[in-house]
């Protein structure tokens, strides 16, 4: 479970995230939406312990991220924006590194590696250095890394960006299939994804939460039916 209270992040004069509070329960898939520069990635960086909040608190599975960062990080799988990974390594080497960090061993190690390689269709590129992979494959390696230890909490920053349509579909199916007992937060600019996988959506703009509702709830608030139109209406200030 994730509990966020009055979270604020300032970069100098710029307030990237302002007084954001929400909770996410296991089984929920939270879609994190908002225009470019809204503060989605910044919020995710704070949840995963990369950025220290200016104010407010974050609790992941009962551990305060500022006070017990290692305990919190053990329970999180994180795909950072742009899916950074070590270019000179091959996916096999990279996953082996993550396996060691996550302290997987024995049969579990073998099973988990096999499973994520199969789930993200990495078998053909296993021994090619990551820097020579196409963008979509890099993203898949990043996703594999995030889910490898079967974490209770998944934070995915634009997980389907750069994937081909088939892969987008498969990654959504993957997220749906692991969702029932997990806390999942994904940010995305593809609004059809919200209908497809999210049980709840938060729209933020200029660091502030505008809406926190189910996809159906969003529809009922708006005169439009298409998610894109609803998004535009909300973020351009028609509803708040």
């Amino acid at each position, binding site marked *: 479970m994730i509990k966020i209270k009055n979270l604020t992040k300032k970069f100098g004069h710029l307030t990237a995230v302002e007084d954001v509070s929400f909770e996410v329960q296991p089984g929920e898939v939270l879609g994190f939406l908002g225009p470019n520069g809204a503060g989605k990635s910044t919020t995710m*960086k704070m949840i*995963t*312990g*990369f*950025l220290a909040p200016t104010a407010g608190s974050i609790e992941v599975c009962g551990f305060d991220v500022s006070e017990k960062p*290692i*305990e919190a*990080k*053990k329970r*999180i799988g*994180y795909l*950072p924006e*742009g899916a*950074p*990974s*070590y*270019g*000179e*390594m091959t996916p096999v*080497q990279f996953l082996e*590194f*993550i396996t*060691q*960090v*996550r*302290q997987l061993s024995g049969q579990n190690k073998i099973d988990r590696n096999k499973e994520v390689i199969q789930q993200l269709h990495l078998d053909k590129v296993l021994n090619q*250095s990551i820097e020579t992979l196409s963008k979509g494959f890099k993203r898949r390696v990043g996703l594999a*890394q995030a889910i490898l230890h079967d974490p209770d909490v998944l934070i995915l920053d634009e997980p389907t960006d750069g994937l081909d349509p088939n892969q987008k579909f498969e990654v959504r199916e993957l997220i749906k299939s692991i969702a029932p007992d997990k806390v999942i937060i994904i940010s995305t600019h593809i609004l059809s994804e919200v209908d497809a996988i999210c049980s709840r959506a938060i729209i933020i703009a200029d660091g502030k939460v505008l809406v926190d509702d189910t996809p159906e709830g969003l529809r009922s608030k708006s005169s439009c039916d298409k998610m894109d139109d609803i998004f535009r209406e909300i973020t351009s200030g028609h509803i708040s």
Partner: protein
Amino acid sequence: MRNIITIFKRELGSYFATPVAYVFIVIFLIMSGAMTFYLGNLYERGQADLSPFFQYHPWLYLFLVPAIGMRLWAEERKSGTIELLMTLPISVGQSVIGKFLAAWVSIGIALVLTFPIWITINYLGEPDNGVILAAYLGSFLMAGGFLAIGSCISAMTKNQVIAFIITVVICFLFLLAGSPLVLNFFKAWIPQNIVDAISSLSFLTHFVSLAKGVIDLRDVIYFVSLIGFWLYANTIIVEMKKAD
């Protein structure tokens, strides 16, 4: 400990997956050989010891070690992998130590590969091998000092070239801290006891006796605490600057 080893292995693997380690080792071997025989006149001296070999190490390290150290954190920040690393359940201190050790071991490998010089001198005469071993250890320790400075500076910038240049300058000051050049500059305007303190920070002063094979505990403590200090500063800087 386990995390340090994991980071260490990944880092060492990446040195040898890219040309970095090989280039370093080859250049180190060529340069140290050239300096020993041409500048140090190993043959002509007619003495069975390796001081012509060790006496140039500080100057070799001055340029080669910052070249190894500059990428340690700058590259991680530039490529964004620092976000991955810092969100894994590994503490910053563990990452700093693991990375440092991997680079240090690469330098150690280069140092070990200079063994033909040691064989040569044993073939030519009867050197005191205990002295040579002590000098090797001293040289390795000094390389660690240079490297810890490089690692720390590398965390301050995303730009490896800047990291390299600043590290060279700082290492140069540490090298020459005991020389008249630096001391005369300070003597004019600061008290003598501070001048003495600056002089006691000099790499050269501490290395000279180690290179002669005299393992004085004070010299060892000096290099070990120097490494500890810079790596501690390194940890703080990574914490502060990781997300900039």
